[in-house]
C-alpha cells in the first residue's frame, strides 16, 4: 500500500462519487415514480388502452441488456435528430430535435429511470394482484369511487407489499449506475478505471471504489429498512 497514491486517489474518487450520486438519486426517484404509475395501470388493467403499450415497454427494458439500452439512447437517438430537425423546421414546430442530443448524464438518468421503472412496475403489479379481491367489493359497497379505492386501498397496500422488491431494485440501480461509464460519464467507476489505467494499480483502486459502493448500498438499505419499519402494519410482509 502506498499512502501517497491514496492521497491522490481520494479526491478523484470523491468527484466520481458525486456524479454517481447525482445519477443515482434522480434515477431511483424517477424510476420508482414510473414504476408505481406503470405498475398501477398494469395491475389494475385501467385505463385499458395503456395496458398494452406499457406491457411492451416493460418487456423491452427487462428483456434487453442495459448496456445496449444506454448505447442505443446515447448514440442512436442523434440519428433521429437530423430528420426530426428538418421536419420541425419545415413545419414550424418547436425545437423538438434537441431532445435527441442528450448529454451522457441525461442519457444515463433517462435510461436508468426507465429500466428501474420497468422492474419496479413488476413488483407493484404483483403486489396489486395479491390484494384480496373482497376489499374492492367492500369499497364499492361503501360507495367509494374507483379513484378513491385506488388511493386509499390499492396504493397503501401495494406499496407495502412491493417495498422489499423495490428496495432490492434500488440496490441494483446503485451498482448498475456504473454502466454510465460506457457513455464516458465521469462517475465513480469510470474515474476509478482511468486512475487505475494511468497508474497501473487496479487492485487498490477498485478496492477503494468498491468501498464507496458498499457505503452507498448500506445507506440505501438502512433507509429502506427504516421506512419499512415506520410503515409496518401487522399482517403485512414478513
Amino acid at each position: 500500500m502506498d499512502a501517497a497514491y491514496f492521497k491522490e486517489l481520494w479526491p478523484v474518487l470523491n468527484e466520481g462519487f458525486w456524479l454517481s450520486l447525482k445519477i443515482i438519486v434522480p434515477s431511483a426517484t424517477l424510476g420508482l415514480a414510473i414504476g408505481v404509475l406503470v405498475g398501477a395501470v398494469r395491475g389494475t388493467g385501467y385505463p385499458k388502452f395503456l395496458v398494452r403499450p406499457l406491457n411492451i415497454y416493460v418487456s423491452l427494458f427487462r428483456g434487453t441488456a442495459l448496456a445496449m439500452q444506454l448505447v442505443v439512447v446515447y448514440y442512436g437517438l442523434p440519428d433521429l435528430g437530423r430528420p426530426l430537425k428538418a421536419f420541425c423546421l419545415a413545419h414550424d414546430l418547436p425545437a423538438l430535435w434537441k431532445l435527441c442530443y442528450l448529454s451522457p448524464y441525461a442519457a444515463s438518468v433517462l435510461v436508468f429511470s426507465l429500466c428501474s421503472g420497468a422492474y419496479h412496475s413488476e413488483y407493484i403489479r404483483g403486489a396489486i394482484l395479491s390484494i384480496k379481491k373482497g376489499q374492492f367489493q367492500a369499497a364499492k359497497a361503501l360507495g367509494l369511487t374507483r379513484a378513491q379505492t385506488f388511493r386509499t386501498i390499492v396504493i397503501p397496500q401495494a406499496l407495502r407489499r412491493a417495498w422489499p422488491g423495490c428496495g432490492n431494485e434500488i440496490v441494483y440501480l446503485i451498482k448498475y449506475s456504473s454502466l454510465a461509464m460506457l457513455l464516458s460519464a465521469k462517475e465513480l467507476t469510470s474515474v476509478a478505471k482511468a486512475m487505475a489505467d494511468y497508474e497501473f494499480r487496479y487492485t487498490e483502486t477498485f478496492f477503494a471504489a468498491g468501498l464507496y459502493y458498499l457505503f452507498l448500498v448500506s445507506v440505501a438499505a438502512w433507509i429502506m429498512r427504516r421506512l419499512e419499519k415506520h410503515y409496518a402494519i401487522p399482517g403485512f410482509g414478513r
Partner: protein
Amino acid sequence: MSADSMPPILEVKNISKTLGSKLILDDVSLSLNKGELKVLIGPSGGGKSTLLQCIHYLIPPDAGEVVLEGRPASGAGRGGLCAFRQEIGMIFQDFNLFDHLTAENNVAMALRKVKKHSKAEALERARRELARVGLADKGQLYPAQLSGGQKQRVSIARALAMDPKVMLLDEPTSALDPELIGEVLGVIAELSRSGMTMLMATHQIGFARNLTNEIIFMEAGKIAEAGPPAALLSPGSGSRTADFCAKLSELMGPGR
C-alpha cells in the same frame, strides 16, 4: 298509516342475471318492510350471493329493478349508484376488512371519503359504532390481530356507520369457528330488535327460526318457497325448506 299499508322500504322486482352462459337468477322478486328481517336459505350455488350482490348493484342485474324507498336504482348513472350503495349496507362472508387499516379506521374511512366527515368526527362515530358491537377496546387493532368474530363485528360497525336503510348479509357466520358464531349472531339479533331492516343469507336455521318472520328458500336461481318459519319448518310440512334443513342438521348436528 298502519304498518300494513306502509310501502315496502326495499322492493326487488323480477331480477334476472346471466353469468357466463348460465342463468344464475331467474326472475326473482321480493320486498322488505321497514324493520323486517328476512332470511335466505338454500343449497350452495342456488344464487343467494348473486342475488344480494345484484340488489346492491355490485353486479348490475340484466333485467328487473331494485327500488329503495320508492326510488329505482337503475338509470341513476355511476354517481347515483355510489349514492344508492351508501344507503344499503353489505356484510360479506369473508368480512372484507381493509387489511392496512385499524378497526377504527376501517369504520372511519368511508365516513371521511364518502360522507366527507372531518377526521375527528369520523373517528368519534367509528368509536361509537365499535362500542355498539362490543369492540370499544379494539379500535387500535389491525385486522390481522382480530379473531374472525371480531372482524365480522368490525365489518358490521363499518356498515352501520353509513346509516344504511337496509342491510344485506351474505352468510355472515359461515367463515367463523363454531365458538365465534354466537357473538356475531348476537349483534345481528340486537340490530334486528333495534329496528334495522335486513336480508340475510344464512345456514343458521335455529337463528332464523327465532328471529325472522319470513324464510325465503332459493334454489337454482329461483325462489322456490317463502313463508313464516313455523309453516315452512314444521316437520310435517313436506316443504323443500324443511327437507333441506333436515339434511343440514344431519350434516352439521342438531341445534345449528
